[in-house]
């Protein structure tokens, strides 16, 4: 296992290196989701742990670097919410496609997005996944099946539906996933999208990451029905709610849903209860603002899904995985540091395509 992950990391670094040369390829590695069957619960746990831990450590590194002003851009960190992205993306094939949001670091990485290209993008550098034009809020890695995210809440939901429509239209057996927050379910476009997806029986999985808040506003102050999965009933869409943020439960639900979708049974909905550890945007906590309590935060941290699954692994395995992750992350940040800023000609490049 150790050797496998080692080799895989090599692949990853190779892929990242080629990205440095301007060739954008999907990274390959064990953090790469899906496709392979679980050859035992331990390998499965390693995969999930590794993917979540990697995201967590990337976010923490961003927090550490942020005060240096090298990332001159808002960052909406996924810290605390890794299980949703990882649990779902682990159930996908590499050619399945994910649409996510400005809080997209976790989904990008979980779906196999290139880490070097992501950090360079945050640094606004020419080797970023969008040459620095996009920043943290608009990550993209088409080769990894991760479509461009949006800073306008809700906009990627109908796009995901459109993508799923295209898959059905082309008779492809690929599944599209739309990740979005609790706040997004209040936007009209969410309903229009759900209705259309149900009507056309599209191969799409809707994943609502309910972290209880839209910025500083609690979900109970935005809806009388706090169980958002119930909204799927209006469209006769199968829905489940995972209450405890447990990655295995999320993963199991996602696998079930994805299989049914791939069988042609139409769209499904999963609501994942989860929790954001940092402030809405930027590094660090925000209890000082007073909109949430330390005890609420503590409760969620007490059942941190990374810690939980980490405990199920032998310490040497974990140590090795952790070390590999640190090396990869250090490499990505160094890569970003070295990468140049885009030239002035980029200012008006690609306004139109082709």
């Amino acid at each position: 296992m150790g050797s496998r992950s080692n080799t895989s990391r090599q692949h990853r670094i190779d892929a990242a290196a080629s990205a440095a040369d301007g060739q954008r390829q999907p990274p390959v590695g064990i953090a790469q989701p899906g496709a392979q069957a679980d050859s035992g619960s331990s390998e499965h746990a390693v995969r999930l742990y590794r993917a979540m831990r990697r995201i967590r450590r990337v976010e923490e590194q961003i927090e550490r670097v942020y005060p240096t002003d090298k990332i001159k851009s808002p960052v909406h960190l996924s810290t605390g919410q890794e299980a949703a992205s990882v649990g779902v993306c682990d159930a996908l094939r590499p050619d399945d496609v994910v649409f996510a949001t400005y809080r997209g670091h976790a989904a990008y990485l979980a779906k196999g997005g290139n880490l070097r290209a992501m950090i360079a993008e945050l640094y606004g550098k020419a080797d970023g996944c969008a040459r620095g034009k996009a920043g943290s809020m608009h990550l993209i890695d088409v080769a990894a099946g991760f479509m461009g995210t949006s800073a306008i809440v809700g906009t990627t939901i109908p796009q995901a539906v459109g993508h799923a429509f295209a898959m059905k239209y082309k008779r492809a057996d690929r599944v599209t996933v739309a990740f979005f927050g609790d706040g997004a379910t209040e936007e009209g476009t969410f309903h229009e999208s759900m209705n259309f997806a149900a009507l056309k029986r599209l191969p799409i999985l809707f994943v609502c990451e309910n972290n209880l808040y839209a910025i500083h506003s609690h979900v109970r102050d935005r809806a009388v029905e706090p169980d958002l999965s119930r909204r799927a009933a209006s469209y006769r869409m199968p829905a489940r709610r995972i209450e405890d943020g447990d990655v295995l439960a999320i993963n199991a639900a996602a696998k079930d849903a994805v299989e049914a979708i791939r069988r042609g049974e139409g769209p499904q909905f999963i609501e994942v209860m989860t929790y954001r550890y940092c402030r809405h945007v930027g590094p660090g906590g925000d209890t000082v603002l007073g909109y949430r309590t330390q005890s609420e935060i503590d409760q969620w941290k007490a059942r941190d899904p990374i810690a939980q699954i980490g405990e199920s692994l032998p310490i040497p395995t974990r140590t090795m995985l952790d070390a590999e992750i640190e090396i990869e992350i250090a490499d990505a940040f160094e890569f970003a540091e070295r990468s140049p800023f885009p030239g002035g000609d980029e200012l008006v490049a690609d306004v139109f395509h082709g």
Partner: protein
Amino acid sequence: MAERELTYAQAIYEATAQEMERDPSVFVFGLGVDDPIGLYGTTLDLHKRFGPERNFDTPLAEDAMTGVAVGAAFAGLRPIHVHQRMDFLMLCMNQLVNVAAKASYTFAGAVKAPIVVRGVIGRSWGQGPQHSQSLHSMFMHVPGLKVVAPTTPHDAKGCLIAAIRDDNPVIFMEHRMLYNILGIVPERVYEVPFGKARVLASGDDITIVAISHMVVEALRAKAHLEAEGIYAEVIDPVSLAPLDIETIAGSAERTGRLLVVDNDWTGCGASAEIIAAVTERLQDGRVPRVARLGFAPAPCPTTKPLENLFYPTGRTIATKAHAMVRGGGSDWVPHAAEAAEIAEFRGPF
């Protein structure tokens, strides 16, 4: 063959059918496209010919359906999203302005959004304030969008084909009063390239640039003016973004007078852009006299007598041009009957 005539509506139908024939990734959707009216015939029975997945009705959900078009385009399809009125595009502005227009740039070319958004401009028979707007300047304002407003059946077909093949979002504007206009339309597949204005009639005294249905009115004005010995050059920009300012400025420099007539309000409108761009460009040479005509500065009234006053007509255009050529004191007004396409319209809506 070359002399075959089609109506504007038939030209749109033919362009669509030919492109659907050629490219299986082209599909049509929108409210009513597969109903027995088929959007004035422009999409009539396309589903019978190409299957129900390639020409389909949708729920009422303009915003999400635009997002669906964008997402499908990201996945390699070429959607044509049809709206019964341009006014309804106000429901899709977020997807059009904030997403579709910006996708190629934001993602440094990693995706493209080749969507065609067809919008019908309503007029006549009491369309009123919410079913009569054009609003093209809003789209012209936003980098990343292309906007075309063909006037002839020939250009309707060629522009629609070009729009479908374009790798960018294109707003395709159709004025309902043009649907029954006949014109020569080649049967073959051809593109009318964007960014090239069409000089529809030459003249030395004044340049009249007119947009969409106003081209028809400008040509009427030209006839009135000729009776007075005034010769107008009439230019149809065809595509509004990109806009062929060279041709317009060249003509205006030569005639010394530029009148821009828009099927829209003038404030921050296409007419403002054309005048500003021409003025900027010509200030080292002969600065032309300039003027704009457009909608009255009000929402469109429903009742016919007020609606008649709301729009520029062949008459009011001629009067304005006459004053620009002969001097402001002129109170000449041509004799003119109401335009047939407007007087006769009774639906369908």
